[in-house]
């Protein structure tokens, strides 16, 4: 299945105005983690928080809704969230943990849960894993190239970055700049080119903007746990939802992009195999 195994797909956004203001799209990750914290489904969450340098995120353990909201928004470079999971349990004493992860990070977490060879008493503490759609990720130096060289402004001025409608967008206080996505090709980390997962097929819940209108996100519920938590949040009024059939551009676009990623990267995998290079998939 091109979107992985799932229970339901809806278009949704957080109703909280404060979350809407800071979130990348529909505020699903921020809203759901904050809800899970408040309902004590989780005691803390590992998120990509602000780092020392602007746009260079660092994994952090958020223990309050405010800390989660402060970490809202997509960062298009590395934040090795998985490494913080153990710290969250050992050093913060968290027994019920939530986190947000791109597909490859989801894979590291799920493999650890099924085969915890060297990882002691962590697997069963992860109660909510929110996956986000991901086509590729960029080294920080690549982002610098896009913003400083191709767009000609300092990264310090950037207030938001976004990918959509075939372009990489950069928002400053009084300007909107963009470059075609084509110009970013070759700047992604090459490990992304063998990945067949666009829609975080192993998340409890997966989400991303693709398929939904501006300011909304497409939410896929997958596991029993993820489905239950998301429905609880809807019932509590945290999210408003729309049927995917009623929104533009709709599910077709999500399916198309997922299929494209699989097809393109399968070619890379085949080529690697021809060359005798290792591929885990």
């Amino acid at each position, binding site marked *: 299945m091109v979107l*992985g*195994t799932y229970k339901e797909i809806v278009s949704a956004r957080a109703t909280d105005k404060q979350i809407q203001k800071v979130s990348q799209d529909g505020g699903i990750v921020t809203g759901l983690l904050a809800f899970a914290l408040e309902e004590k489904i989780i005691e803390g969450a590992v998120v990509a928080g602000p780092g020392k340098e602007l746009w260079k995120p660092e*994994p952090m353990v958020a223990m309050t809704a405010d800390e989660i909201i402060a970490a809202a928004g997509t960062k298009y*470079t*590395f934040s*090795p*969230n*998985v*490494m*913080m*999971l*153990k710290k969250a349990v050992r050093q913060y004493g968290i027994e019920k943990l939530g986190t947000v*992860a*791109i597909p*490859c*990070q989801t*894979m*590291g*977490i*799920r*493999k*650890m*849960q*099924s*085969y*915890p*060879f*060297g*990882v*002691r*008493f962590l*697997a*069963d503490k992860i109660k909510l894993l929110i996956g986000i759609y991901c086509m590729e*990720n960029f*080294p*920080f130096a690549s982002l610098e190239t896009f913003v400083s060289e191709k767009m000609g402004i300092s990264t310090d001025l950037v207030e938001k970055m976004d990918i959509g409608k075939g372009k990489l967008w950069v928002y400053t206080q009084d300007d909107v700049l963009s470059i075609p996505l084509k110009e970013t090709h070759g700047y992604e*980390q*090459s*490990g*992304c*080119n*063998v*990945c067949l997962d666009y829609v975080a*097929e*192993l998340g409890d819940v997966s989400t991303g903007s693709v398929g939904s209108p501006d300011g909304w996100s497409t939410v896929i519920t*997958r*596991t*029993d746990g993820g489905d239950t938590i998301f429905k609880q949040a809807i019932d509590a009024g945290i999210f408003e939802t729309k049927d995917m059939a009623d929104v533009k551009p709709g599910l077709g676009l999500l399916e198309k992009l997922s299929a494209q990623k699989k097809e393109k990267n399968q070619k890379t995998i085949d080529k690697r195999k021809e060359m005798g*290079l*290792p*591929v*885990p*998939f």
Partner: protein
Amino acid sequence: MSLISKIKRFLGIETKPANEEAKPAKSGEVGASEQEVEKVAEENAKPRIGYIHLSGCTGDVMSLSENYDILAELLTNMVDIVYGQTLADVWEMPEMDLALVEGSVCLQDEHSLHELMEAREKANMVCAFGSCAATGCFTRYSRGGQQARPDHESFLPIADLIKVDCAIPGCPPSPEIIAKTVVALINGDMDYLQPMIDLAGMTEGCGCDLQKYVVNQALCIGCGTCAMSCQTRAVDMTSGRPEVNGDRCVKCGICYTQCPRSWWPEEQIKKDLGL
């Protein structure tokens, strides 16, 4: 089918269909005899496990004992520990279904060599239990010249000397992976055990595996799983790539074992998640 037959069948060893297909008792004759058959079948289903302690720190068997909630049930009803210092009052090594070998083997220690060879002869399956037995781990740094035995210099993963059927790396392996492995063995879940069987071939481990087999191979995605799993905190993430502190690395091989880009058990994960 009893566990022994399953293991033997899996390893391609001839197995007798004894006990498992007991003749149906005539009606009216049920009772004592049927119970007896069940009892025999049940006894046969308990794998006979031996524990062989070579050059390791006992951490692996301590990790096993951290399965408090299932340990009593495990030791009383699920397995028979038939051999092992501190675990069984036995001098002669008996026949075993499974030998768990903890520790690497010291070439200068005649007793260890003998014990390992005997275990291979007496056990249907030999498991490298913990990273010392699997990869050599910390003992890879040994150079001899220390009291009380300055001649004890050379320590090897057991697969360098004998055929090893499966490995559970870890320094130590987590209590959960030990429990999961034992349960899979008892259920004959060979799908779950396949990675352990494959890992029997991994007799070298090091933090530098991350650079050689992941980063150099254009496979690293900077997820941080290696840094999370390192049991000595030797791995940190710098600019989205693992950076290994060689002074802290014990060569257990766990960072590479846990990396989602080394091997990928997709079917098992989906099964575990109900997807």
